[in-house]
């Protein structure tokens, strides 16, 4: 029986067949008009966009000095004398307004306010308040734009870090540097577009995870390249004993041929990435030694950054290396300095942390400015959330700790088209809530992309059926921060 049906289906006249086919073709043509992606081979976009900014960028490169662990804004840049007056008194419910607590303080019966142990003074044209722990930063306040009203939803380190780096509290998304690498590529083809440098402070440290500079669903070419903290910043850079550059080049060429054959057969985009990474590594063999040789820096540069800057693995040496990388065209350099999580022992730990970073950070700004690079390099300093105005644990006479506080924190930006010498946003006298001009993490990202000449709503990547972007579904450029 089925056979008859089949045979019947086969008895199609020419006229019938041509008629049906034209209908079919026509529908497909119509479909391709209506759905532009209909006839694409199925790959989700090219791994690298055409690398052009949407409009004229102010900043060409970014150096992000990420203070891991959340530095206390109340001991650094947000002066709240009311807390000193009210030390020991309970945090009023009208101020707290039901803010959720972390697991670490949820068991606390009392939330005594505590003022900063360190004194503050005003500096510069904007009259920005800076604590005594950051004397060098205080000197360059006229280059800096403080944002006192950053806020986030995350209350613990992992989600907050992920949020700050990738625009969402859940992982698996590309980090900021990867988006920038995807959108703009590397200025210098001999170095990666996104570099990561780590250092550890003496305070209470929290972990730093490599997912924070991962490429998420973007092509793995855009991954952050972590430099090592030892003297050899990039390991195995030299050709192995018994082989010279010629030999390496020949080897790479043959390898590329083999990989091409493999790619034809399987079409795995990771093969292409691998080939590109080999090429990049080959070029880095020439480019990196120039950079990591710190011994030829002039004396006054070393003095400016401090003696630490020649010891690999310190924050100061990372700042110096960051300047060198940025000068050589690396698009996004990210530093992580751990140790700011002062749940306890604020008085002991915070000065040590500040000592590690203050001099070198100010030196970095001055170094860039002297070379005429500050205008096109955006420098950002900040953590993942703020700290509470009440004490965690025992409020002792000479020591205290602070818990995590997502409702407001301070970061600062300099160079790269940011308005210098201003203080943006206002928090209330308790240092707990935002009064004016809140800047959400998504807004922060949108503004950074804007400075780089990218429209944050147009830098997208299609993944799992929808278009993702760094600012996800939110984010507004804060125009008041732009020069």
């Amino acid at each position, binding site marked *: 029986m089925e056979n008859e049906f089949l045979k019947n289906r086969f008895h199609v006249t020419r006229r019938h067949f041509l008629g049906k086919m034209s209908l079919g073709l026509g529908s497909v043509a119509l479909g391709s008009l209506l759905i532009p992606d209909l006839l694409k081979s199925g790959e989700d976009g090219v791994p690298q966009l*055409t*690398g*052009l*900014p*949407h*409009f*004229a*960028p102010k900043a060409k490169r970014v150096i992000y000095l990420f203070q891991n662990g959340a530095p206390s804004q109340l001991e650094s840049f947000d002066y709240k004398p009311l807390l000193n007056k009210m030390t020991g008194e309970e945090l009023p419910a009208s101020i707290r307004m039901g803010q959720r607590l972390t697991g670490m303080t949820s068991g606390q019966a009392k939330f005594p306010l505590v003022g900063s142990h360190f004194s503050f003074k005003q500096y510069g044209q904007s009259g920005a308040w800076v604590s005594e722990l950051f004397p060098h930063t205080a000197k360059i306040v006229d280059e800096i734009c403080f944002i006192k009203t950053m806020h986030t939803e995350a209350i613990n380190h992992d989600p907050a870090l992920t949020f700050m780096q990738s625009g969402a509290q859940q992982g698996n998304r590309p980090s900021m540097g990867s988006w920038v690498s995807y959108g703009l590529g590397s*200025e*210098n*083809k*001999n170095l990666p577009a996104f570099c990561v440098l780590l250092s550890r402070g003496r305070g209470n440290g929290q972990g730093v995870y490599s997912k924070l500079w991962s490429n998420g669903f973007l092509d793995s070419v855009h991954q952050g390249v972590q430099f090592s903290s030892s*003297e050899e910043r990039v390991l195995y850079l030299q050709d192995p004993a018994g082989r010279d550059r010629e030999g390496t080049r020949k080897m790479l060429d043959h390898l590329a041929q083999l990989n091409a054959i493999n790619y034809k057969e399987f079409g795995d985009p990771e093969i292409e990435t691998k080939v590109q990474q080999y090429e990049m590594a080959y*070029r880095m063999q*020439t*480019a990196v030694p*120039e950079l990591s040789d*710190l*011994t030829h820096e*002039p004396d*006054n540069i*070393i*003095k*400016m950054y*401090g*003696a*630490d800057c*020649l*010891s*690999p693995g310190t924050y100061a040496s990372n700042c110096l290396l960051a300047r060198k990388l940025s*000068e*050589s*065209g690396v698009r996004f350099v990210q530093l992580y300095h751990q140790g700011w999580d002062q749940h306890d022992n604020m008085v002991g730990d915070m000065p040590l942390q500040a000592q590690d970073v203050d001099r070198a950070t100010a*030196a970095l700004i*001055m170094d860039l*400015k*002297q*070379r*005429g*690079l500050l*205008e096109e390099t955006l420098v950002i300093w900040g953590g993942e959330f703020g700290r509470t105005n009440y004490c965690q644990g025992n409020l002792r006479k000479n020591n205290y700790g602070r818990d995590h506080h997502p409702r407001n924190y301070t970061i600062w930006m300099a160079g790269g088209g940011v308005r210098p010498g201003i203080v943006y946003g206002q928090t209330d006298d308790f240092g707990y809530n935002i009064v004016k001009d809140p800047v959400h993490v998504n807004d922060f990202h949108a503004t950074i992309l804007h400075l780089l*000449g990218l429209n944050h709503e147009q830098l997208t990547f299609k993944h799992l059926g929808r278009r993702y972007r760094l600012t996800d579904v939110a984010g*507004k*450029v804060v*125009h*008041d921060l732009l020069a």
Partner: protein
Amino acid sequence: MNTINRVVFNVIFCIQILLVFLVFVEERIQLPAWLQVVGRLHPLVLHLPIGFLIFLAIVAILQRQFIGDSARHILHIGLLVTSLSASVAALFGFFLSLQDDYGRDALMLHKMSGVVVSWFCYALLLWHHNQGKMKLFYGFGALTLVTLIVAGHTGAVLTHGQNFVLAPMFSPPVLTVDNASVYEFAVQPILDRKCFSCHNETRAKGGLVMSSVDKFKEGGKHGKAWVEGKPEESRMIKAFYLPLSHDEHMPPDGKPQLTPVEVSTIEAWIKSGADFEKKLNQFADGDSLKFIVAAFVASRADAEAPIVEKQYNFNPASFDVVAELNTPFRSVFPLYQNSPAIQADFFLKDNFQAKSLEELKSVANQLVVLNLSKMPVTDKDLEVISSFRNVEILNLNFTRVQGSGLSHLARLENLQSLSLAGTSVKSNDLEAILKLPKLREIFIWNSQVTDEQRDALAKKYPEVEIIGNLFSDSKVLTLGKPRLENDGVIRKGELITLKHSMPGVTIRISKDSSDPDSVSSEVYKEPFAINESTVLKARACKDGWYCSDILEVTCFVEGIAPAQVELLSPADPQYPGKGAPGLTDLQKGFADIFKEPSWLGYRSQPFSAAFDFETRMSLKEIVISYGKNIGGFIFPPDEVEIWAGDDKKNLKLVKKVKSKLPTGYTPNGVEALPIALDANTSYQYYRIVAKPVAKLPEWHDKKGEKGWFFVDEIFFY
């Protein structure tokens, strides 16, 4: 058919006469309401004669394709209908023109041409009907079509305003907050978008023309549109706030409405006096107009207006030329998408050649940013650069420019920013450049220009920011500690190597546990050997810096290896290490990580191990390497006993040592407990017993608890 023909003919004739009559008496006409309605059907009806006329034109052209006489019949009926609808359209248009206030001139032209079209159509009809000369007929038809186009265009001008069709091609001049008055910048764009289409010179509803400043001030049929300083009494504002369904609500229902921001902008403008000239910075700081315009600018920037781009007056370079210029050592790219301006960056100085720069001549006109930082560019090359007339930003940091070639750069009229940091330019070389009209900043850090010279230049050229050395801190800093290169146990023949990252540093060492100082201590010149485990102290010194902190490290040297090792007491099950072999395998443990195979941990019982050398071995010293982590209760061993003998089962106690326990919290570390043996200690078997601290001392947080003893290696010398 004939009757209908005759009726229609006559109707058309009547309408024509009526039209002529109306032309003469239009001033005296007062239209009743229902005729006004009829008049508003004009935009509907006028489409009919247009369509028919064009259709008939096609029929006339394709006459031969029709069978027999049918073309004539079609033309006849077509002309009838065309003429009738044209006349009716003209009539309705007439009624409409009496209602609204249209600009006199534009309306006149449209009216006349419309009426003429209707006449011509009637004439065509008659001609065709009476079978007149066909050639003339067609000529006349063409003339009708032309008149139709005129009528249509003028009618469109009445409705949409001038330049409606081509408007998207021409972008209006860019207004900024600085170069335009607040009215031009903030208020006029709103009115342009939402009001001008009905309130302009050619079509002024309510008699109000808003597109001309003077006429706007005059007002309309009902008087002035606003009262200066009093938005609440202004007619225009009142119209905004009327309910949407109200007749007088502006903009009318169905047209794009004003947003709240736009309404408050206009209100604020009226409140501050409805001035057409004042610029934003002329308003007082507290003026609400300023805030609103600022918000308006921000919301506009976000929502509608494009980013204001700098306009360049040169053509973009071809895509292929730019692509060809890109090599791994030279990046050439537009500043942003579709920008004609180009940037060129150079990398890896070993690959730079003079021709790398010359090849850029193919984009000489488009180059706006040039980055030659660290390249071996000489003064001669500056001549090539001077041909890139549109360069605005030039980076010559750390090049070999010495200054003589800077005069070439004086030809760069558009130069805004020049970086010469790290070059050997001198002060007088800069004079030529500082005169450039557009130059706003120059960077001369680390060049031959002294601070005084820089100040003098800054005074002479106040418009240019001259940035030299920004850092001047004569504070003396402390050096970092030197570093021990050796890892783990020092093998026989291995030399101790110390290093410091800063060049020109002297390292002072001491091998006898005294602190080295910068004057009298031994100087480290080259790697040296040591024979036994030593505590090495080192410190770095350099002129102009304070000496570094002391580096204190215990160097463990490989000793004599016993043939066999046996563990007589088991380690704590949590920290078994590698058992007996781990004690002499020369693998050192780390101070911070104790749960690791190198370490054996003991708490509840003493450590006890036996060592067999197979022959009599004369030993001078035994060194026990132990871990110290006060916070983790890991202490040096309280008491150590050395048993020795030639008979495994019969050993004598040869040495007993009680160690000095720490008196406070000290940093973690791996330390050596050296036990000197008496002169003639020479046996085959040795046994070491080490007791962990039984009770943590008073000063410890957890005093009284049992301590730990961790051992990773035992050395015999």
